């Protein structure tokens, strides 16, 4: 009958447990005993059947077996020696990441720009705070929109609020759960104390000055801070790459642009969402190893297709540092990496190694690594004020990272802005930026005046914040 897999949602690093039922098509089922999420899922988790679209191994558009694709990739990698970059954001298992690290020692990129940050902040950024501590906090300060970006944290914050916590948000719009809503420009009005718990996020497109700023705000007030992250095993990948020579995404883009990197190997990572198309176009070889079809698998010269995440065997570390095991049996990802590395990766061996590196005793959901959280010195930050009259702000969410369409083809804006532009209620808004223009539906919300929020990529964005002109 139907195959049921106990698995973890790849939408972000929250570590939500669920079941996937294979039954002709895929169904999501609720794993109520899962400690991170009690079986609850956000709209992305509910969309997983849409995400897991099957993919085939290909070489130059021709279907081949996995081993053959991996062999071909190995050939191309060795032919391009010295100009190969290895990219993995952290959508892999710890075991795969360990194997990947060995493969890509020369030029490894997790997308995170640790180079721009003081070394002593590495661990704080890599491993977050247990969710139970969020529920127990007295004052929570949000530098994210939890509803759009990390929805499963909402109930933890609400639970804290129920117990009397004060919720402050520093965001572009008012959040229903916040008692106090500050705008990013008014961050100086923020009052933090030792009771405060700061929740921010950290991802490849994060503005490092902002990251440094929240780090120093927390440090100066003696507040705790936790960074949420967008990839299923961000925490695991960061811990395991701790000693690797990591290149930042910015560096990678620069290196491709100047021709230093000609071959890019992407492990379960879609750079199409983060690297400009013209940059990707400069590569001579794009190799993608993945478990599901996406826009990038269509562009790749070599596709190495293994099983989707829910069928894999392996360990993930979620944002609170909880080790979780996937319920599948598949290790074809490791097999492929082995072919490329020219060694045979044994799951068992890697698994032991992971446990040792991370400092856990067993692969068990209930094991929280005793990670000694060192202090860090408050870094110097120089946050640039927004100088544009109107700005389009990208609110990164799982749908965006995966390039999965969602019901959000609109911008959210302030009523007064809409009225001043004499917008028609069921009409559209014209948005212009650097010569390109788009027309979008709009939603009226409690947003800062002259700010447009979007949860979808429109193609005119320049990073997180894009100066734009708007009209009817």
């Amino acid at each position, binding site marked *: 009958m*139907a195959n049921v897999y106990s698995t973890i949602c790849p939408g972000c690093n929250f570590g939500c447990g669920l079941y996937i039922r294979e039954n002709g098509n895929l169904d*999501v089922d609720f794993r*109520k*005993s899962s400690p991170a999420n009690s079986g*609850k*899922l956000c709209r992305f988790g509910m969309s997983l059947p849409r995400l897991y679209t099957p993919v085939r191994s290909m070489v130059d558009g021709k279907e081949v077996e996995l081993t053959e694709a991996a062999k071909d990739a190995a050939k191309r990698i060795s032919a391009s020696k010295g100009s190969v970059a290895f990219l993995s954001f952290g959508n892999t298992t710890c075991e795969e990441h360990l194997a990947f690290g060995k493969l890509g020692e020369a030029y490894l990129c997790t997308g995170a720009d640790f180079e721009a940050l003081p070394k002593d902040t590495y661990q704080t950024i890599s491993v977050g705070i247990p969710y139970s501590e969020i529920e127990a906090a007295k004052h929570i300060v949000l530098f994210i929109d939890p509803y759009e970006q990390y929805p499963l944290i*909402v109930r933890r914050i609400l639970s804290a609020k129920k117990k009397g916590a004060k919720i402050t948000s520093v965001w572009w719009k008012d959040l229903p759960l916040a008692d106090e809503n500050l705008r990013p420009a008014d961050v100086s009005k923020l009052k933090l104390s030792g009771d405060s718990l700061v929740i921010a996020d950290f991802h490849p497109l994060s503005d490092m000055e902002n990251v440094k700023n929240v780090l120093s705000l927390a440090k100066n007030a003696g507040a705790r801070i936790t960074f949420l992250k967008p990839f299923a095993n961000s925490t695991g990948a960061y811990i395991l790459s701790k000693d690797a020579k990591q290149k930042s995404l910015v560096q990678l883009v620069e290196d491709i642009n100047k021709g230093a990197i000609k071959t890019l190997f992407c492990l379960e990572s879609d750079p199409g969402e983060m690297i400009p198309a013209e940059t990707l176009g400069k590569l001579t070889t794009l190799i993608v190893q993945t478990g599901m079809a996406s826009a990038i698998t269509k562009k790749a010269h070599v596709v190495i297709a293994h099983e989707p995440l829910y069928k894999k065997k392996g360990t993930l570390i979620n944002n609170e540092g909880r080790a979780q095991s996937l319920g599948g049996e598949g290790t074809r990802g490791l097999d492929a990496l082995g072919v490329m590395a020219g060694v045979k990766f044994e799951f068992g061996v890697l698994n032991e190694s992971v446990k040792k590196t991370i400092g856990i005793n067993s692969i068990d959901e209930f094991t929280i690594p005793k990670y000694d959280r060192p202090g860090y010195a408050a870094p110097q930050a120089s946050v640039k004020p927004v100088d544009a009259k109107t700005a389009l702000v990208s609110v990164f969410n799982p749908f965006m990272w995966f390039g999965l369409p969602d019901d*959000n083809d609109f911008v959210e804006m302030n009523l007064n802005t809409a009225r001043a532009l004499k917008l028609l209620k069921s009409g559209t808004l014209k948005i212009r930026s650097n010569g390109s223009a788009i027309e979008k539906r709009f939603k009226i919300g409690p947003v800062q005046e002259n700010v447009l929020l979007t949860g979808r990529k429109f193609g005119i964005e320049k990073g997180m914040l894009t100066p734009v002109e708007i009209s009817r």
Partner: protein
Amino acid sequence: MQKGDMFVGWSTKEDIRKRGGSGGLVTSVLAAALDKKLVDAVVVLRKINEFEAVPVITSDVNEVLKSAGSLHSVPSNFAKIIANKNLKVALPAKGCDTRGIIEQSKRNAVSLDNTFIIGLNCGGSMHPSVTREMLEIMYKIKPEDVHGEEIEKGKLIFETKDGKEHAITIDELEEKGYGRRESCRYCMIKIPTNADLACGNWGVVGDLAGKATFVEVNSEKGAKLLQNAIDAGYVQVEKPDEKGVAARAKIKGAMEGLGKKWKDKVFVPMDNRLEYFRKELEHCIDCGACKTVCPTCSCGDVSKCTEYHLRGDAYKMSMYHLIRFLHLADSCIGCGQCSDVCPVDIPLTRLYRRFANPMQEQLKYEPGMDLRKPPYFEAKLEV
């Protein structure tokens, strides 16, 4: 054997008796149905640990035998698992599972002729997360140390691996916000008379207490199912003790009384209801899980409630929820699944019941209890 008959029965297989609760009758009836090809498949819970089991459809008798034993902390609903599968299937079902299955059949998604429903008496189930927290805070025991559980005389008892029993009254637990899921507290269907068989330990008295299951035959299909298990040598039955029958009725009455009390307590009349609903729903993130899990909803991925709810609309109330409130006014069975899966902890069942309670009362309609079509589907309403 015919509709209305009552028996006390147990499995003839010793290992099942040992593993399953109350004499392992239900497990044996399922296994016999599969063995004797009365059905093509059965639905069972594949147990992962004390707090986790996943419902699976299986044709493997061994899987069925392994599933023996009851779990109070696995509040799943089987209706959607068998919907649109076109299977000849037997399955154990609490009152709410049964109601869900019957509602699915009214929407052409399940054929009752092909579905053998073994009803399980149910005083309520618990959410596993809540149970873990309760164990740590109220019982002061580690969830990992739990070996078994039992409800007896109003007390919830946990047995730890060291063989010790830990008991606290359900009243006390629920006072503190633990214990049964809220929807179970005010549920009024304790003995699933809507299922083909109604099984449970209520009414098993004397020497048999704890070693047998009380069965009531509610339909011809039920008779066929039980007779099959007896004929196949899986099950033995005898006529129940008069005292047992009385005891069972008494427990049922007491449970229903408690349910009524909870109902009155939860659904107190309210002023400024619009603000109440708005507040409760303001954290909704549009995941749609409550619809996906809803055992009475037979819509596919696309439905009116989802298609005409746009994230770009800035309304004071969610169109999605308004349509759901309306569609469920007659059909909500109060199973609590929606509350269980809500990622932002909206007490959805409580909200749906606010609409369903007065409507179902007014229409004299109890969804999932008989084959009457939902009044919303009628061409002319005669109440």
